[in-house]
């Protein structure tokens, strides 16, 4: 069966949230450019 997928998916989600939060906190602190939100980004 595919039980491993049942826990692997939430693990990926949690890791994603962690990365998103971490990157935003870090960029806020440095008031530097954060690569996701417009710094190197003139495009959407």
């Amino acid at each position, binding site marked *: 069966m595919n039980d491993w997928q049942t826990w*692997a*998916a939430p693990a990926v989600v949690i890791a*994603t949230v962690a990365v998103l939060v971490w990157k935003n906190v870090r960029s806020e602190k440095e008031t530097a*450019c954060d690569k*996701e939100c417009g710094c*190197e*980004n003139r495009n*959407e």
Partner: protein
Amino acid sequence: MSSPRTFALVGNPNTGKTTLFNALTGLRQKVANYPGVTVEKKTGTGRNRHGEAFTVIDLPGAYSLDAKSPDEEVTRAVLHGERADTPQPDAVICLVDAGNLERHLYLATQVMELGLPVIVVVNKTDAAEARGITIATQKLTERLGVPVVPMQANERVGMEALQVALSAEPVKANWKPVEGDTAARYVAIGELLEGAVARSDEERLTPSDRWDRVLVHPVLGWLVLLGILGGLFFTLFSLAGIPMDLIEGAFGWLGGQVEARMAPGDLRALITEGIIGGVGGVVIFLPQILILFFFIGLMENTGYLARVSFMMDRLMAGVGLNGKAFVPLLSSYACAIPGIMATRTMESARDRLITTLIAPITSCSARLPVYVMLIALMLPVGTAGQKALVMLGLYVLSIIGVYAFAYVFNRTLARQEQTLFVLELPAYQRPSWREIGLQMYDRGKIFLRRAGTLILGLSIVLWALTTYPKSDSEDGSEQLAQSYAGKLGHAIEPVIEPLGYDWKMGIGLVASFAAREVFVSTMSIIYLGEEADDDSVRNRMANETRADGKPAYNVRTCLSLLVFYVFAMQCLSTVAVTRRETNSWRWAILQVVYLTGFAYLAALATYQISGFFV
């Protein structure tokens, strides 16, 4: 050699700085931002004749070191070595225009007085010669004691001589600091140029003048402009469909491959619905972004864009904007982020703010898929012509919105300064395809990086919100109602009900506050669960009914949703850019509140008033 030598590239706007920068560095360049301001920081690396690497910083265009705009302030601070993020350059390449040496040397002599070694590059010698101006650069070299290199950067003429100068040990100019005001500096520059510049008095009609006779002609000028904008929008909305279908097909194929190779399960659903569906839904805009920047690049590169500002200024002045706001607003039709960043060329802080505040009302390309989906639902048996008419109506509505809110802000915001409008009209030049291509490459790369990072992350989070907590029910819609997103949708239902929306639309609405196009991918996730295929999502949405058995996506609801999407501020990235641009949360929050509040009221009015007709 220890660390590579750093050259700063300095010059007035429209001198060909970017062209020279590209010629020196090629693809070895990096675009970032000066922290705290939305001024672009462009750095690149080149090699000198000894094979040693050097760094070039392309500083924003400036007329003087007495800074009068954020752009000029960055240039001033970097040259003074006051920016912690950018070391003071080892030497400065001062780019000056051969057609107007006096004015361009104004900035160049200020730079010399900083005590930094300089190399003077006299650009556009060909255009100057066409107008009867010849410059004895050798004389200037002798007088200043630094290399003075004649160039035609767009044809790469003079690169060899510049390379020689770059390979030598940089030297400081033999220039006595000017005491006194602006006029004194012009007098000193006049003395420097004495006998080095020859002008023929003969009246000449330059090719540029001939072009202007047509392009800013009171009648022909408008026809040409309308033709170009018509061509732009035609390419954007019809030709772009071909590569967009290819991209869609590629992502569909990818999803199919995953499904064929993986057993059904949560992780597979996350990959196909969340990742491939979500990222694919955004990457599909790449062709449109590239087309828009091709047109803008072409207009900018040839010098036509300045003429557009020249012609449009009067129309913009009526609502307190100036002709320079046209470019940021035009860019905003692709995306408000480059649009808002383009406001940095405007000198007046007030004009910048107003343009920034209204930029998100322009119909950015992220709204397109939402419009397309909703119009198809609204007019299930409509002809292509009718659908196009609705689409056109939405664009007209956004233009009216831009003007109306510009007018409102112009009336309400305190006037801090007298706004002076000076627009430089550079001579026309042949477009450099290489340069336009580089710019498109640059923008495309940034766009894809974003799709692979922020959009990817948000898609995964969104998928999780519609999936967890899991219920025992096998029924997809039961499962959705149980999920976090479903609960949220139900919670806001009372607020959105007067607008004609149900809780499922509420989920889409909330999700698209991250980015508008997320509405479409959310709908795929909501109505399909697995095996997303655009057409059948639409069918299921069309068949969706309310408690009373009537279709959920009726004409009134669709109209109301469309109006909501015209005005609502649903883009996290734009909020972030506004925050950075205005340097305060205040304006960013105001922008979200006024746009979303107005969107709510406008959608409410649309739904309620249309009830009398439909």
